[in-house]
């Protein structure tokens, strides 16, 4: 039996350039601002940072976040914040900021030795 398979050679994208495209100078085009996205995965939990995206305004940022970050029921609520408004600590200060906590083990309940007889503590 002779089986013929029909192949769509180069049929992917129309060859002809339809539509009135005008060449633009991309590098001067003003881009949309960057937004940070926070998602609450279910009622009762904190919003958590999940990533970022570009959008013209807050409403579009929320719409885009819904499409990009919640396609599989990952969330029930979305926050967006324009990235330029996020202030962060300097990684170079990490030592002075966070290391002092390392030697204060008395701040943890496990520091205290209690007899086994003590219940409910």
């Amino acid at each position, binding site marked *: *039996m002779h*089986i013929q*398979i*029909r*192949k*769509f*050679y*180069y*049929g*992917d*994208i129309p*060859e002809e*350039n339809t*539509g009135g*495209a*005008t*060449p*633009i100078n*991309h*590098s001067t*085009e*003003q*881009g*949309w601002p*960057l937004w940070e996205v926070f998602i609450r995965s279910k009622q009762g939990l904190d919003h958590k940072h*999940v*990533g*970022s*995206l*570009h959008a*013209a*305004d807050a409403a*579009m940022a929320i719409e885009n976040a819904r*499409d*990009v970050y919640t*396609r*599989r029921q990952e969330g029930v609520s979305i926050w967006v914040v324009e990235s330029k408004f996020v202030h*962060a600590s*300097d*990684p170079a200060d990490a030592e002075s900021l966070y290391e002092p906590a390392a030697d204060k083990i008395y701040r943890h309940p496990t520091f205290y030795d209690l007899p086994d007889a003590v219940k409910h503590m």
Partner: protein
Amino acid sequence: MELYDLEKKFQEKIEKEIKIEPRDWMPDAYRKTNLRQISQHAHSEIVGMLPEGNWISRAPSLKRKAILIAKVQDEAGHGLYLYSAAETLGTSREQMIDDLHSGKAKYSSIFNYPTLTWADMGAVGWLVDGAAILNQVMLCRTSYGPYARAMVRICKEESFHQRQGFESLLVMSQGTEAQRAMCQDAINRWWWPSLMMFGPKDSESTNSDQSMKWKIKRKTNDELRQQFVDMIAEQIKLLGMTLPDPDLRWNEERKHYDFGEINWTEFWNVVKGNGPCNKQRLEARNKAHEEGAWVRAAALAYAEKKRVRTTAKVA
């Protein structure tokens, strides 16, 4: 601190499996390597939508059409996660898109092959996504934090891509003789390009050594390729099809499959821009970008108008 000390501290962090975050100090070459790899990866997701988008309107059933649309939408999402990760290294989205459109930036060569029949949708899911997943699972543990986090998200979504592909071929492999032939034909055409996805042999790969030392990559091209061959050589038995390689056989001593030599001339030709669809893909991307320019400008103008109105009301 001297540069030498910074580099030493950086490497110590890598050895201790501490992730590198955007504002941490990093060697320029580390930044550049990550930027190149992440942006190429993002471009691949975006261009990867084209060969599959080709079949959305011709899917054989509503079920298959819905699956294909979901898969293509995932790929757009994966592109966006990755562009965001790349932006944390200090480049702009516009710059990356420009580099893709001008042909300066590369994307995975696999997408320069045409999707000729419906069976190609199955073969692309099973083989191409299957190969991509091996690479991506490894990258979930890459040393640059934003890249690793993007990959975790992507891997969660990607496994459906491979499974739907195999299932689609499985249905075809149990169909009519013509369907079986179409299935085998698609496998024949996609097998070798899929093996090429892992890149040049370790002995010839220029980027591998340093990337391993910085734990950007954790397995070599050849290791991943062998893992892929071992996996597919077993799975194909369930389809009752064959892989187009007369040298493919189990090696009891190595406990791996041996396989034939890849056509490296073809590989380099496609990388250099002479594959069957390189030109078309770039044209399609450029066309979409140019035709969307007014939409992007209008959205910005609208946002600005709303901002001015709100400010006026407050005042």
